[in-house]
């Protein structure tokens, strides 16, 4: 183990956490997309306006996190994670078991975050538990969007905008740095992380979400080969490059000697150009219906039988021509 002044250990730790977090997230997201169907609204599909809305939340939420007192902030985060876990687990294990599992995971996170952070081992256990929570949230949310109709085009543009956002909010207005400091050591830290010695290394939930989105949107749009390319870009540009950059330059080290790398700045442009290449090479993206009809979908897990329709008690359909001569 290196000394506190060495860059080797923190770099290796950051690299390990980023690569592991990315690979686990995109791997589980792919498996989930191929095997599990999430409920979707009766009418509606993901479109450009939704990207704007999601981006609005991404801009607004960190600012909200900064101004909210800690307790309400943790409540908001807890509710967010609970919702994501419930949505993701319910199709897998049914509603009853879901609430038991989610309750246990959430309670354990709170308990561990409040009682186990006095030792390195305690930190490590907390991180493992928190990582499960965050990865599940990223996998569920990515699937919710893509199974809701989000296209690779949306993800690519989203990544490009996030690249600018991430750079600005790291270097110009260092909100990201402040947030990272605020969350660490509390329950519901929205990061996948681990601790070795005095070093904590993390990769944000937002980063993992966009990597997961990118890979499964590529799978849906163009199949496994495109998804493998997307995974390589996610790991290289989203995990490896951001983890190694601090070795080359100290521009990412802030006044507290924390290393904050705007990972999207490297990932966003690469993802966008890859999307453009796919579009030019393979043409239009597949729809969700096209994906589901393809051999890229595994046999879905058995879903609970829908409740039989009761005797219809709703108004009849309108005739297509609503009037007569």
């Amino acid at each position: 183990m290196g000394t506190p002044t060495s860059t080797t250990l923190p770099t290796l730790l950051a690299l390990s956490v980023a690569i592991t977090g990315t690979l686990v997230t995109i791997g589980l997201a792919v498996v989930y997309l191929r095997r599990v169907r999430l409920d979707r609204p009766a009418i509606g599909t993901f479109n450009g306006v939704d990207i704007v809305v999601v981006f609005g939340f991404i801009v607004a939420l960190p600012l909200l996190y900064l101004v909210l007192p800690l307790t309400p902030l943790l409540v908001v985060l807890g509710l967010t994670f609970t919702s994501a876990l419930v949505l993701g687990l319910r199709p897998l294990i049914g509603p009853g078991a879901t609430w038991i599992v989610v309750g246990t995971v959430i309670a354990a996170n709170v308990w561990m975050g409040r009682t186990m952070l006095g030792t390195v081992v305690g930190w490590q256990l907390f991180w493992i538990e928190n990582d499960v929570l965050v990865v599940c949230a990223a996998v569920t949310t990515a699937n919710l969007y893509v199974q809701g109709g989000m296209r690779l085009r949306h993800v690519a543009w989203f990544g490009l905008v996030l690249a600018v956002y991430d750079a600005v909010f790291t270097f110009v207005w260092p909100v990201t740095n402040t947030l990272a400091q605020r969350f660490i050591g509390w329950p519901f830290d929205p990061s996948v992380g681990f601790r070795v010695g005095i070093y904590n290394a993390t990769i944000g939930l937002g980063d993992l979400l966009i990597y997961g989105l990118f890979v499964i949107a590529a799978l849906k749009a163009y199949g496994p080969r495109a998804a493998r390319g997307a995974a390589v870009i996610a790991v290289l540009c989203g995990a490896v490059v951001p983890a190694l950059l601090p070795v080359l330059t100290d521009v990412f080290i802030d006044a507290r000697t924390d290393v904050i790398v705007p990972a999207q700045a490297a990932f966003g442009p690469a993802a966008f150009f890859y999307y453009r290449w796919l579009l030019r090479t393979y043409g239009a993206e597949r729809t969700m219906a096209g994906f589901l009809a393809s051999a890229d979908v595994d046999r879905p897990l058995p879903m609970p039988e829908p409740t039989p329709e009761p005797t219809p008690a709703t108004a009849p359909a309108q005739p297509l021509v609503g009037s007569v001569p």
Partner: protein
Amino acid sequence: MFETGVRQLRMALSMTWGRPFSTDSLTRLVADAVATIAEFGELGLEAREVIETPFADAADRADHADRSLRRTAQRLAERSPFYAERFAASGFQVRTADATTLLDLPVTTKQDLMSRPRDFVCHGSRPHLATRTTGTTGRALEIWLSRYELEVAAALGALSAVLHDELHADDLMQVHVSSRATAAVQLASMTCRLVGARCRVLGIIAVEDALDALAGSATTMSVNASYLAELVVSARRRGLGPADFRLRRIDCVSEILSPAVREAAEQTFGAPVSDNFGMTEVIPVTGTSCSAGHLHHDLTMGHVEVLLLRSGAPAAPGELGSLVVTPYFPYRECMPVLRYDSRDVVRQLPGPVECEQAGIPATSAVLGKAGQLIEVAPDQVVTPRELVEAVEDLPSRPWPARFHAEPDGGRLRIDLPAGAVAGLSSAALTDHFAGRGLDARVRVLDDHEAPSLRRVRSDLRELSFAAPEPVGA
């Protein structure tokens, strides 16, 4: 997806609180539904509930009707000269209006509309399109609709069609209704435009031309029953069958559709035929038939009563009555009617039904116009539907039915053209009608008299220079 949720909420609020719809929002909601199908191949679960009000509970139904009637009556009292006068004359209190107090108000008749059409136009509304009845039962009646009304009716119709899988973006709808029925034609084309489908409005043209257009191209057809009958006859004469058509549904509007014609149409064109109720005066309130032949009424957009033909009292189970319809605001706003007496006769069902639409109040199918009922004996009435069904079930398949019937000494006398009874003896004819509950004596007329025996909508031929076709051919 986020926008779609907001649009659904806006529509639900308008339906619940009776606020005017945002037509732009409704239009975009249709586009959302089409986009959803394009992306997923189908809509999500419970999609139909988006536009339908749950009416499982009778108390909910009554509450919805009372609130909607009160809202509609209040607006009419403020803006409709005819109803302001009528309410005052009847002492009708709009603030306490409900389905019960409504019974004290006289029905609105066609004569009211014909004699004072301007007084029905509400202050502040902007008439946009005039639409006329065909006048098959008398003088044509003109109804003005606002642009808002058309857009709301088209958007809700399109949404309903998409949600019920009745119209797809790749459909081609062929429309055979009279071009005078501008609202029907306009709504059909607007509906198709919203869904992205193609629309071919042909009207009541030469049947051979219609068949040529239909074969191998149209996927849905909107048609009057009599014209459908002519299409079937012509298609069979040409030896055409299901393989020659791409139709996947046929929507029959107005007129009496007999089981014989319906079955033949389904066999010939290879598509199910739906039999719907609609009426220019009460747009957009409609009714749809179920597999058991009941007519289920649209409770979301209007109030439907069945009143005894003579006394005007509510008809009891098993009794004949006239359909009296009140379209609600905000679905109608320009020239609305309250308690419009359609004179379309139905029979109240004797008890609860067990069809696929059992939760929705229903009556029998429309049995004909009140003025065409034939009282054979003091307690025995023959309806036009009984006659049409019996005639169209003759072995000669005389479609559409051309006949004249009147009481004749306690029996029924039916005049039929010779072609309709070809090959049948007098006794066989008597047996045929007796088997259908009609004690009838048949008088045979020359075939050339057929068109004058019974007017049907397919008589309203729209001729061309290229292929003039005699009316009733």
